[in-house]
């Protein structure tokens, strides 16, 4: 498959507001795209549109299998971290090691700190075998070690032929194509 995510003349509308009009881009294996813009410019909506969770007002989005990490945990709080991640399947153990939360595997999710929670949502994506990763504000609540680990994960994913779209107003480190949204 030549492209993992393809926007063709896409319009995204929220209520009466047009956030994006006539957007065209293609993301292939090994490519990464950073969506930037001020608060309220529609970065998260664009991610959700790319994920297929929001409909496009016009145009077409083609996507491969994907994994999404946003500010929703989507892990059962009463379960141990390992079991909770296991529900979504994939290479859970490696993902926990990659994000340095493997020592928390036997801790209930509800006891995790916000930084650890963020790592857990990223581990859910890393464990998935989806070629396309969508990350909404992946740096929120991450410390410098967390950022470094995320950077390494992204590099490895790109080397393996994956693609990443990240929405963030902060620099992500590495060489990202930029897509700037205006208010």
């Amino acid at each position, binding site marked *: 498959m030549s492209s993992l995510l393809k926007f063709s003349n896409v319009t995204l509308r929220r209520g009466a507001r047009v956030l994006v009009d006539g957007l065209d881009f293609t993301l292939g294996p090994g490519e990464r795209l950073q969506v930037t813009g001020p608060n309220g410019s529609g970065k998260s909506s664009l991610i959700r549109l790319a994920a297929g969770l929001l409909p496009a007002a016009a145009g077409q989005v083609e996507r491969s*299998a994907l994994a*999404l990490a946003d500010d*929703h945990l*989507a892990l*059962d709080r*009463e379960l141990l971290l390992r079991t909770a991640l296991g*529900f979504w399947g994939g290479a859970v153990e490696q993902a926990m090691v990659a994000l340095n939360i493997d020592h928390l595997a036997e801790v209930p999710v509800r006891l995790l700190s916000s930084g650890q929670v963020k790592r857990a949502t990223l581990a859910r994506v890393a464990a998935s075998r989806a070629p396309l990763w969508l990350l909404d504000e992946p740096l929120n609540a991450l410390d410098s070690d967390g950022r470094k680990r995320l950077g390494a994960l992204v590099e490895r994913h790109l080397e393996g032929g994956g693609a990443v779209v990240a929405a963030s107003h902060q620099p992500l480190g590495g060489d990202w194509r930029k897509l700037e949204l205006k208010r």
Partner: protein
Amino acid sequence: MIRALIVRDLRRGFTGAAWLPIAFFLLVAALTPFAIGPDPQLLSRVGPGILWIAALTAALLPIERLIEPDRADGVLDQLALHGLAEESVAFAKIAAHWLTFAPLLLLAAIPASALLALDAAALWQTALALAIGTPALAALAVAIAAVTAGMPRAGSLAGLLLLPLAVPLLIFGAANALLLEAAVSLLLTAGAPFVAGAAIRATRT
């Protein structure tokens, strides 16, 4: 994935609030003799109807925890990304909710019937009618939970929506017109996943 979701919801049901509706059901049955007096003849006359009303109101209690927590926590989004149709999610939730709700309710009907001075034949009749009605009650609860997910005061709104829809079940069930009740139950159970699926999609923001 559907089976994993049913197992997960069963675990959450039985370790969580599955007992509340049953306790409520028994409480209503226990209150009735206080409210209308201990005369066994009167109690056994109104007993089956009371059990039905208790079951309907008990079905309302869990509505707020059926869909909303998973919507707010992004679980419904992740399930969609794993390729599960919203209708399949709704079906799994209905199945899991029915399995946590119906067997306990039918068990609770035994002590409840003793409180209401029902004899074995009346208990058997009522339990059979309840058993036929419970899939529809579970399906309605999940559908209404999906429709009201994310709304303020969803719980009270859910009551206003669910109880009128359950009236046909109540009429045929309490009158022991089991075939008609089964037909209504089938219709509601078959339709609910589609209503709930559409509602889950529509509430996505």
